[in-house]
């Protein structure tokens, strides 16, 4: 993750973005800068504060999720990316170009080729058939009709709507219309996808199928996706980074684990309370340092290393990486037998390591059954951390049941 972040290049940069809805926003901006709240401003001026001092960067190829309660300004924010809404103040840069400086023609071109959008309320053209709707972006670009229709059919198939080509939007269910909207956005091959609650009208089954598809698509085509949702589970599942809005203000942004483990405010905490952490977190995000490593060549040295540990066991690691777990007792026995013996894997007990990418839920049984903390070993065989029962309990622990947590810790 860290490496990915380092080489990531910024695609979209938002700086000091303000949006005040009303007849004369400029006049009332001073109130906003004085820090008056949304409700105060509405009462005093009749203007609605849509967004307040938003700063963010979105990297190429990531899925950036925007969350927040109804009315918190998510749709308003996403509409600024392709300038469906003009900001009252602030900078919007895409690939280093200031979007605010684009003239009408260049703005059209920008919208045609750089971004495509899925709308919360679908926004399908009711007088065109489903396939024509999907091909709409291409027809706007001036792509030939037959080429557009061929592509549109492919995408309709991808979203599971083959056979509906000649229906009209009004003849489809809400979820089906949503998928037509999705196909329309994908059909233009734009680099950036703006998705405003794109999955909210789908049933759970199709929804998780579409989530998988989206992740797959992003891995294959390296699109940059900005995704709005109400659903934190969804956000955690697909998001590389998450931003949380409240009343037009950004209250926290960061990687999903950050938000889960260190909620910045009560608002965020309320948001994350009901999340199934076991399903949302991976081992890597909660594991402890890879301590208790035995790297000695001889039993004698190994014993010496072990003396320095708090526990009476360690993980034997040689040039080939992690070998197994070894107890002080076993080492002592081997030493008593032969005090010049080489340290080998033979003294070790087998203890299956877990992968850093594993979802917590999947490692709960192993962690609970094992006498030792489980070693976390990556694909190259290197030990990168360890996961103990107490860590697990701490992370998954529920505020309502402090007793159970204590017991687990004590045992």
């Amino acid at each position: 993750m860290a490496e990915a972040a380092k080489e990531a290049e910024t695609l979209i940069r938002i700086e000091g973005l303000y949006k005040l809805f009303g007849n004369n926003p400029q006049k009332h901006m001073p109130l906003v800068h004085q820090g008056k709240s949304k409700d105060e401003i509405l009462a005093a001026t009749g203007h609605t504060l849509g967004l307040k001092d938003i700063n963010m960067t979105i990297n190429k190829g990531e899925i950036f999720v925007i969350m927040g309660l109804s009315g918190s300004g998510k749709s308003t924010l996403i509409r600024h990316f392709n300038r469906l809404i003009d900001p009252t103040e602030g900078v919007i840069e895409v690939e280093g170009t200031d979007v605010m400086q684009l003239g009408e023609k260049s703005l059209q071109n920008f919208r045609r080729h750089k971004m495509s959008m899925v709308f919360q309320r679908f926004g399908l053209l009711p007088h065109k058939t489903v396939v024509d709707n999907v091909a709409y972006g291409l027809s706007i670009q001036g792509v030939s009709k037959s080429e557009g229709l061929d592509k549109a059919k492919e995408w309709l198939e991808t979203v599971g709507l083959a056979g509906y080509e000649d229906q009209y939007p009004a003849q489809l269910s809400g979820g089906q219309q949503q998928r037509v909207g999705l196909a329309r956005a994908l059909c233009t091959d734009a680099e950036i996808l703006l998705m405003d609650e794109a999955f909210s009208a789908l049933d759970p089954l199709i929804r998780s199928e579409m989530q998988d598809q989206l992740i797959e698509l992003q891995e294959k085509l390296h699109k940059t996706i900005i995704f709005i949702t109400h659903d934190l589970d969804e956000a955690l599942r697909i998001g590389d980074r998450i931003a949380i809005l409240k009343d037009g203000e950004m209250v926290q942004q960061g990687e999903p684990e950050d938000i889960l483990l260190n909620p910045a405010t009560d608002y965020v905490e309320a948001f994350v309370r009901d999340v199934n952490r076991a399903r949302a977190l991976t081992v890597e995000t909660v594991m402890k340092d890879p301590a208790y490593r035995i790297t000695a060549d001889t039993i004698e040295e190994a014993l010496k290393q072990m003396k320095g540990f708090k526990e009476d066991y360690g993980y034997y690691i040689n040039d080939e990486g992690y070998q197994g777990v070894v107890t002080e007792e076993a080492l002592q026995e081997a030493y008593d037998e032969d005090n010049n013996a080489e340290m080998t894997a033979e003294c070790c007990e087998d203890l299956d390591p877990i992968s850093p990418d594993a979802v917590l839920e999947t490692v709960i049984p192993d962690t609970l059954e094992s006498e030792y903390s489980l070693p976390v070993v990556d694909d190259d065989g290197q030990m990168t951390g360890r996961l103990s029962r107490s860590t697990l309990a701490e992370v998954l622990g529920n505020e309502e049941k402090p007793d159970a947590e204590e017991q687990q810790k004590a045992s």
Partner: protein
Amino acid sequence: MAETSWLSEIPQLSRGELRDIRKGLDGIYRDFSREYGETIEALFDPLLAFLVWFEKLLLATPWFLVIAVIAALAWMASRSWKLVLGVVVSFFMIGYFGMWDDTMRTMSIILVCTMMAIALGVPIGIAMARSDRIQSTVTPMLDIMQTMPAFVYLIPVVMLLGIGKIPGVIAVIIYAIPPVIRLTNLGIRLVDKDVLEAATAYGASPIQRLMGVQLPLAMPTIMAGINQTIMMALSMVVIASMIGVKGLGQPVLKSITNQYFTLGLLNGLAIVALAIIFDRVSQAYAKRSQQHMEGLDNG
């Protein structure tokens, strides 16, 4: 006396002043029409030629062919046998009672007026929908056109162009064009903002938005406007006949001056029959072409 009279009587221009104003304005307009009347008339020559040609065509075509063509159009528009039957019977009766030629003349002038009203009205309506300023200047003009008695604006038209077909057409258009303008404006303004926003987000240019989204979605409303325009044009044929437009209006006019009740009634009924046919056919067409938008047609 002189100081208090304004309390009991509204202040008024003296008779002489009023006469001078009237004379002045009339004089200016008369000079204007003498000067430019012919040039302006010449502008309308192509329209006149088309009108005459179309009328001759309708009159020269055998009656059964005309009925067949109209019945076919009604069928294509409505796909309803009942309507087609009604059309055939109505036209047959019109001919049977000796009103065929007048009906053809009236139909030709109504069709030309309607086409002109659409050609002028739809662009004006579009312009109104795009700009609040244009809307607020055009709306009062439409109000005037709809409430000003037709005879009043017939006067300058006749002064300028004399008596005949062209002034008749102009009078009919002035009277009948407001609905198509108003409803085009309304229809475009009522287009779903979400759909329009989606088109914008995909980079549609203003023209692409107009042709691809706004006009198609406003079409039901525009069709209702066209329908009303046709109705109003038909109701204008009697007045237009006063300035020399031939057709069903002239016998009506004649029967008013001579108190021929039956003649008036028959011609009046022919106008009603035309109105009902135009109305039903255009409505059926509008409905059929919009069906899928409501999702009724699950075929």
